[in-house]
Structure formats: structure tokens, C-alpha cells
């Protein structure tokens, strides 16, 4: 039983993502059941990617520092362009060093971060749990907490934190239709051009608990320290490197053909010892 009524096809729009028209909603209502069934259908041709940055930011407490609490640090997971990750991540669990009280800290809503005071550096395990229509498997990240700056000269500054961040992308290779539809236009999520003929159901909003909570980290107090990750730089470097290598290959190939064309020297006599 396929979709009984012709719905507007996604692929026909040039901008790649069609906003849900009200007329569609009306039609969808009558075939709600079919929608529900289809919502969990996985779309193999589409790969959803969520670029994130995760890391730590640590401030030296200076005068207020004590033996056991010399730094105030924050561990966080943010969208790469500081957008709200709550649309994808349901909760984040930060596993701290066992010397902390309740080392398993759960953050139920964005921004997914945790602040603490301490003196020691250790590896923090971050587990991301996704919404039910996104993925039922969790994802683990690891990040070593860094409190002391590389440059050990001079006293530590209380104004400038030690920030270590890693860029990565969460990839969902076969997202469900419901997921696609929900995040299609969200700035935090990269959804590629959807293939033609894809009938997507209407989006079902997920429960977010506290709607008022500001989800994105655009105006985060730490945002001024966030590192910049530019894809363009890296691409440029890679392209330059590839060009160099390719030129070299061409040169070698030419040389090789020259050498191969050379006549061989006479064979050794039979008393040759090997």
C-alpha cells in the first residue's frame, strides 16, 4: 500500500529542501497511519551529518585557587557552527575521574556541557544519546582534560583559558525518514540533496522538556574562546599536496619509460655465482 495521494515530491525543488506546505499537512492527516509506518523507514541514499566540536576550556583560579581546586574547567559538546544540538542529541553523559563525586554526570538538555573545579588532568568519556527517531545506539567520545598551557613560561593567566577542542562529524548513514524530515532545515545538521521521488512524512516534533532553555551556544560565555575550524584551509593544503605528488608521479613515469627503453646489457656467463 503505497501513498494513496500524490504528495509534492521533495526532489523537484531546486533548493534541495522543500518546506512542508500546509496543504500537505492536511492530506497527511488522513493517512496518518501510513505515515507512522513510513516514518521509521530508513533512507539508504541519504547520509546525515552533524558537525560537532567537543573539548574543554579551563581557567586558572589564581588567588582563589586551592590545593585541590586550582582550575575551573568546562567540558562541552557544541555544534560546529554553534548551533543547537538538541535537535539530534537527547542527552549527554560525561564520565569523570572517579575521584569526583558522582563521576557520572548526565546533561539532559542543551547546551551539553559540564563545569567543575579540580586540579588534575584526566580523560573524560562523553556518551551521546540520540533521540529515538535518530538512532537507538549511543556514541562515545573521549577527550583528555588539559589544565596547564603548553607554554610553561610565566604564571598562568586567570583571564585566558586553556582550550582544547576537537572537530568531528557524527554520521548517520541510513537515517529514518522521520529524522530527515525533522532536521531538514536545521542549521546544525547537514542534510544532502534528497533524491528525487522521496516521499517524506510530516515532521513530528520531539519532546524537549524545557522549551525555554537556550539550546545553541552562539552567545555562550565561552564562545569567545572557541577555536575556529575551517574546512577551506585544510582542503587547500590537501589540494596543493596532491598537485605536488601528481606532478612528481608524472615525472617519475616519464623517467621510468626512458629507463625501460634502454637496451639490456649482455647476460652473465654461466660461471656466474649467485
Amino acid at each position: 500500500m503505497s501513498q494513496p495521494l500524490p504528495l509534492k515530491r521533495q526532489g523537484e525543488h531546486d533548493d534541495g529542501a522543500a518546506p512542508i506546505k500546509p496543504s500537505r499537512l492536511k492530506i497527511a492527516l488522513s493517512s496518518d497511519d501510513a505515515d507512522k509506518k513510513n516514518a521509521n523507514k530508513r533512507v539508504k541514499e541519504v547520509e546525515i551529518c552533524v558537525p560537532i566540536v567537543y573539548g574543554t576550556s579551563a581557567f586558572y583560579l589564581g588567588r582563589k585557587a586551592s590545593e585541590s581546586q586550582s582550575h575551573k574547567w568546562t567540558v562541552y559538546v557544541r555544534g560546529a557552527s554553534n548551533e543547537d544540538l538538541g535537535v539530534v542529541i537527547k542527552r549527554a553523559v560525561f564520565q569523570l575521574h572517579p575521584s569526583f563525586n558522582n563521576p557520572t554526570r548526565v546533561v539532559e538538555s542543551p547546551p551539553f556541557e559540564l563545569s567543575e573545579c579540580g586540579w588534575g588532568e584526566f580523560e573524560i568519556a562523553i556518551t551521546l544519546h540520540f533521540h529515538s527517531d535518530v538512532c537507538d545506539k549511543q556514541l562515545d567520545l573521549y577527550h583528555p582534560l588539559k589544565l596547564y598551557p603548553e607554554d610553561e613560561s610565566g604564571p598562568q593567566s586567570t583571564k585566558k583559558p586553556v582550550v582544547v577542542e576537537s572537530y568531528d562529524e557524527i554520521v548517520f548513514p541510513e537515517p529514518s525518514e522521520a529524522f530527515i524530515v525533522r532536521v531538514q532545515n536545521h542549521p546544525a545538521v547537514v542534510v544532502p540533496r534528497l533524491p528525487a521521488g522521496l516521499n517524506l512524512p510530516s515532521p513530528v516534533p520531539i519532546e524537549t522538556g524545557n522549551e525555554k532553555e537556550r539550546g545553541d551556544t552562539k552567545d555562550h560565555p565561552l564562545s569567545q574562546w572557541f577555536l575556529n575550524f575551517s574546512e577551506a584551509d585544510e582542503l587547500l593544503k590537501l589540494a596543493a599536496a596532491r598537485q605536488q605528488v601528481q606532478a612528481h608521479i608524472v615525472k617519475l613515469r616519464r623517467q621510468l619509460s626512458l629507463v625501460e627503453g634502454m637496451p639490456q646489457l649482455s647476460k652473465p656467463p654461466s660461471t656466474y655465482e649467485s
Partner: protein
Amino acid sequence: MDAKDILGLPKNSFPPLDKKSRPPKESHRKPDGISREVYALTGGLAPLMPALDPSQLKKKPPSDEKVAWQWLGITSSARKDNLHLYHWVRVVNGVPPTGDYSFAKYNKSVDITKYTNEEYEKYLTDPGWTKEETDQLFELCERFDLRFIVIADRFPSSRTVEELKERYYSVSRALLLARNPSSVDIASHPLVKEPYNISHDLERKRAMSLVLSQTRQQELRDEEVLAEAKRIAQSRISAKVSQESEMAVASNAGVEVTERTIPGETVSPLPSNAQHPSIPVSSSMSTENASTLASLRILRVYLRTYALEQMLQAASSSAGLRTIKRVEQTLQDLGVNLKPRVPTKSVCAEHLELRKEILTLLNLQKQLQYKEAEGLPFREGSYTETPGTPKHFHHGKQDRAFVPDPSFGGERTGKRDQKRKAPGRLSEAPSSPAQSKRPRKLKASDF
């Protein structure tokens, strides 16, 4: 010593070892009896184990025999003609050695079956062979102990070695069978179990001579073809594997949604997706990618860096550790991060491509190296593997007197190569195998 203090034991409770006073002296003074160089092999110090006293080595073991040498005559059972020969014999205590000449026991011969005329008439006649010829053959076989090359040489009419062999073995076999008609024992006799197959033998010899007379070019071509065939076989296997895993994934997804979706809808996208990775790919690279992708799909969610790692592992599974190190070194020289700082989809793809290209580059460098080395006719094993030790290579070079040997300082170069850990010089002469340990010809560009 401290332990002794603790235990309260006297310090010199056992006789002091001679060795203790000797090593400091011995390092300056080498013992007589062995040459300096030989002694230096031990490292210039006395060996840890109580060694043999070198001056004792040249002494003879004390023997209470009186040994003299006498000029005596011998008779050997190996000879049939009663020839008396004389030689020096070691006489112990006045008693000359008894018994047969000591080497007589090595005079072995082959048992050639002999046939009677009746047997010949009954079992052994053959259109291609006269009785005379067969008799001659057998006589020669006995005389020359089945050395068919010699027999073929001496055979009056010209017959090939294989023909002679065939006649001899078939006659022997027929005789064997005839003489033991119902015996079960001979069934395991080699002549009966595996008779001589002349066509097989001819074919075998032909093939061997072909292989032996192959030119170097042909050898290389053959290897390339074999490698290609192997790759294709591999890709077929992995394509099959990825097809199976795709099926597994698809069936998983299908199972989940069965209660909600109509099976008909899920089935239709299945075949089209299953086709995708199973298209036989000519290059093993893309099949490795396909299988890695398939395994990633199963995960449902993964990090881009993880995916990159998997791809890298798959790509480098076919390369050795040294090659991987070389690739990484090259990346560093090019100023590229070994792990991209901003691993987006396109960055990762570019990174992988770059690595592939570097691999190609390194392979070409190696090929060029071999080609240049080929200037000297030196065959040793397969060309796709790392060559033998530098010493070996060196030897080959020095044998060729008529080839101008530009690398007589090759030893030095070899050492230089081994010590050098500097980055590969991409901008220099392309044949600079910076990372290789083989001695190479010095080029003007080196200086």
C-alpha cells in the same frame, strides 16, 4: 655484597675466581694462539663462559697409539679385475688395517631386471623397438646405472632420452607384472603405481625450458599479470562479502520495520541497493572502500574520524609497515596533518586520495630504482619484493668487470642511507629512495 652484609656472612667465603683478575688484563693483551682479528670478534674481551684456552686448541689430543704410515697394496672387492694398487695406509701399533678397502661399500649398482628370450617374445614386443635395440638398451642401462643421459649418448641409434626411458620402464613394468601375476604386493611397487608417462615428461621438460629461457621482460609481465589476477580474485571475494553484508544490513532493516511497514515496499529498494556494492570493480581500492562502507552502515551511527581510520586501515592492510611509515613521512614533508584537523566529508575524501597517490608515487620510485639497478644483469627473486641484503647486491656489482661501477663507494652510500633519517627529498632527483636501505648509485644531484 650488601646481601652478605645483611646476612652477616663472611665476605670471601669462596675462593676468588681467576677470572676476576684476568679480564682487566686480557682486554689489553690478547692471548696467543689465535689471531688478533679472530679475537676481536669476541668484542675484545674474554667471553663470559669459561672458554677453551686458545693455546690448547692447536695441541693434538694425547694418544697412546703409535701411528705410522706404510706404503701398502690393496685389493678392493669393488674391482673385478684383481688389480693391485698401492697407497699410503695408516698403520696403528704395527697392525695394518684389515677388511675390505673402506670405500668399496660405496660401489653400488642398480638392479636391472633381465629378461629371457621367451619372456621377450611373450610380453615385451613393441612395434617401435627391435629386440636388438632393447637388448642394447638394457645392457647400457646396467653399465651406466640408469643414467639415461649417458645412455642416450652411447646408444647406437639416435633415440631421445624420453623414448629410452619409456621403453625401459614399460619393459620393466611388464616384466614385473608378468612375473607376479596375482601378487598384491607389487601393486604398491612404484613401477606399477606410477608408471612413466612420456607425454607428461616431455611436457614438463618443455615447460621448464620455457621458464628458464624467459627473458626478464617476460618475467616481469608474468608477475604483473599474476598480481592483477590476484587482485581481481580478491575484489571478487570482497565484493561477494560486501554483498553478503549488505544483504545482512538490508535484512536487519527489513526485520525491524516489518511490523510497521508493508513488506512489499521494503523489498523493492533492497535489490537496487544490494546491486550497488556487488558490481565487480576492477580496482581493489574501491572494493575495500565498499566493504568498509558496508561495515560502517551496520553501525547506524559513527564518527567521521572513525570512518577515516577504518578506510585507512583497509587501504594499508595490503601495504607493509615500512610503506605506511614512508607514506606518513611524505605527508609530513608536504605539510599535511596525519589526521586532518577538520575532518569533514570532503576533507577526508581528499586525504584518502592523497594517501593513495603517495603510495603510487612510492611504488614508482621503487620501480625506478629497480630499473636502474637492472643496468647490471642481476636476477634475484621477485622484483616486487624488497631486494636482498645490500651486501649481496654489492657482490653482484663487483663481479661485473665490464660494467662501469660508479658505486664502488657504494658501501659508504649504503651506510649513509641507513643512518639518514632526514625527510625524503621530493624536490631532488626523483630516483632518490630516501627511505631505502639499499646502496644506490651516487648521482651528481646527490652533492
